[in-house]
């Protein structure tokens, strides 16, 4: 950059480039990067009220790491990811393949599967609350059980995971569908001439070809699951006996920062969550070399 000599027109062009990306860059800085730096700073402070902070060093982190509720929430978050991500992506791929096949009303099916994505999470949570109701819910009636889905400490998080998976399948399926449609049909034709069956084709052609798309879906889904908050907030409330067994890190953050007004402590939870997400994403980028195929 330093020794580059630009003509007047090239410099003008460069200025225009800066001008055109300015709104995005400024927005990114003002709305994302700066608040994040502030969050890190806040996590080392005690909130005195109305935006006044006092620096207290590592106290928030010490308190956080000593708090069993925090570790419980961390485990709940990890458990939630284990419950939602593998099953969710497998189901989404299955749905995508069905939608990619030659079936009647394909457009109609695609719309139906995408519909949960368009619905407001509040509405989704309300409907599922009724379905899960331990007293009069339809799920218990179908299964012939008496499970208190939302208030039993073992099933509460599973109930939230089911709703989360259900509402994300459509979106993930559409992304995977796009990946499927990019696969060259000739590959299938050539392999069937060579005598490959459907299952062989799936593992040797479909999976490798779609792995880049799956990788991005995996990263997105995992991040979303680690940040789960809205469904828990909507499907439960503070008086739920199973709250301790279903609250995620983000829910704990909400309660600390906005219910108890302890924004410093809340920020420490956020920083911890970001560190977790960063770690998981790094592992994924490292692991992708082993299974993601970019060159066929």
């Amino acid at each position, binding site marked *: 950059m330093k020794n580059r000599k630009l003509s007047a027109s090239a*410099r003008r062009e460069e*200025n225009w480039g800066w*001008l055109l990306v*300015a709104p995005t860059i400024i927005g990114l800085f003002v709305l994302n990067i700066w608040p994040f730096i502030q969050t890190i700073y806040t996590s080392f402070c005690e909130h*005195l*009220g*109305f*935006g006044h902070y006092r620096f207290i060093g590592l106290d928030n982190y010490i308190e956080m790491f000593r708090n069993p*509720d925090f570790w419980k929430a961390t485990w709940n978050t990890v458990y939630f990811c284990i419950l939602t991500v593998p099953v969710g992506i497998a189901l989404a791929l299955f749905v995508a393949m069905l939608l990619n096949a030659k079936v009647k009303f394909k457009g109609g099916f695609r719309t139906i599967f995408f519909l949960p994505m368009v619905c407001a999470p509040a509405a989704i949570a309300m409907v599922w*609350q009724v379905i*899960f*109701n*331990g*007293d009069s819910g339809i799920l218990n009636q179908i299964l012939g059980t008496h499970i*208190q889905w*939302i*208030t*039993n*400490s073992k099933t509460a998080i599973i109930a939230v995971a089911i709703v989360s998976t259900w509402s994300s399948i459509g979106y993930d399926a559409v992304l995977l569908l796009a990946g499927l449609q990019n696969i060259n049909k000739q590959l299938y034709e050539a392999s069937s001439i060579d005598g490959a069956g459907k299952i062989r084709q799936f593992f040797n052609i479909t999976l490798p070809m779609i792995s880049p798309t799956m990788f991005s879906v995996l990263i997105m889904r995992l991040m979303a699951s680690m940040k789960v908050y809205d469904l828990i907030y909507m499907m*439960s*409330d*503070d*008086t*739920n*006996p*199973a*709250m*301790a067994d279903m609250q995620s890190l983000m829910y704990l953050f909400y*309660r600390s920062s*906005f*219910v*108890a*007004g*302890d924004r410093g402590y809340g920020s420490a939870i956020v920083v911890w969550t970001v560190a977790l997400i960063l770690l998981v994403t790094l592992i994924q980028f490292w692991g992708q070399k082993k299974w993601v195929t970019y060159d066929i």
Partner: protein
Amino acid sequence: MKKFLRGMAAVLLVALMLSVSGCGASDGKTHLTFQIWDTNQRQGMQDMCDAYTAQHPDVVIDVQVVSWNEYWTKLEAAAESNTMPDIFWMHTNQLLYYADFGMLADVTDLYDDVEPGYYQNHFSEISLGNISGSDGRYYGVPKDKDNGVLVYNKEMFDAAGVAYPDDDWTWDDLTEASQKIYDATGNYGYLAYLDDQLGYWAYVYQNGGYILSADRTACGFNQPGGKEAMEFYIGMQQEEWCPDQNFFTQNGAGATFWSQRAAMFMEGSWSLLGALKDHPEMLGKWDIAKLPKAPDPVSTPESLDQDGRACMSNGLCYSTGAHGKNLEIVKDVLKYFGTEEAQLIQGRSGAAIPAYLGTEESWRTAFEEYGDPINVDCIFEQFDYAIQVPYNSASPRWKSQVLDVLTQVYAGNQEVDAGLDKMTEIVNTETAKKLAGN
């Protein structure tokens, strides 16, 4: 490049200035904003503002409703950036936080030219408690007051052949009636759900216990009166006539009562008018009574001698920011809101029971529209022994932690007594921390 950047900065600056100067009225009148959280009270607030602006045509007041969930986040952000609404409702839970931080205008001297001791003469002690900062100054004009009553289903009492609750009802009568109704009709009796203001608080005070001591520094969950009351209240969920907390979380107490699956529950006076409106099919089938009293209250030096009676009372107030632009005009509006005339307008609209002593009965007007179907008198009579809802400046910190422990008690993961000790410790620790910090 430099020139270019400078040019861009200028463009941005002009854009910013344009957007800022965009607001501001040009009709020469003073425009005030008035923020509240209850849609049901909008009309009552509007009527009151109209009455004021009729006398002061140069003032325009815009009533804005913000839902309770966003209200406090929004107000706090506004306070930080000095853009608070001109007038807003203030809640007892939050007043100390705002007032102690110097965010609210001191209105102690508001009525000095009208009548010395105006506040003391026209508002109850509880109302004054609700507007006082830690320094004893007043930071709001009392708006209303409330308390909790026992709502019951008359048909279920009739079906079980049990007499309706009366003034002498005790906890024993409550459980006995619940059992009889359950046996006779299969419906639930009293709904003892996890709640403070509409639940265990009143039981603790009735039994001679306390949540916070008179000076608000010590917690009494594990004191004899409190302990016994908490054990009784939590224990009710073990009875066959009361659903457990799993049920309440999923179904809600109110919904259970109004769908005619239970005979009794505790409800706040502020919800009764809405209940009449929302459940026309229940009209005439239900009534209200005073809360049952403790049969054998514990007597300690701290306990109040009220023969086992108590109910919790709270009240809102109208406040304004300490650094508002139109402080003088706003104070004049606040002054009007605290007059008998304005409080009568509020009462008649059915919005809430006015705080101004002697105007309470005006609230009855709203019930007459429905043919006066419930015994509103018992609410007014309960004010005789009402207790201000317990709070201190550390409330925001301990409230959610206490709730966490209580849900564990209800879930059976924590023994009641150990839980009460833990809750007491939480309140005491947070309170001491707050006091040490200030």
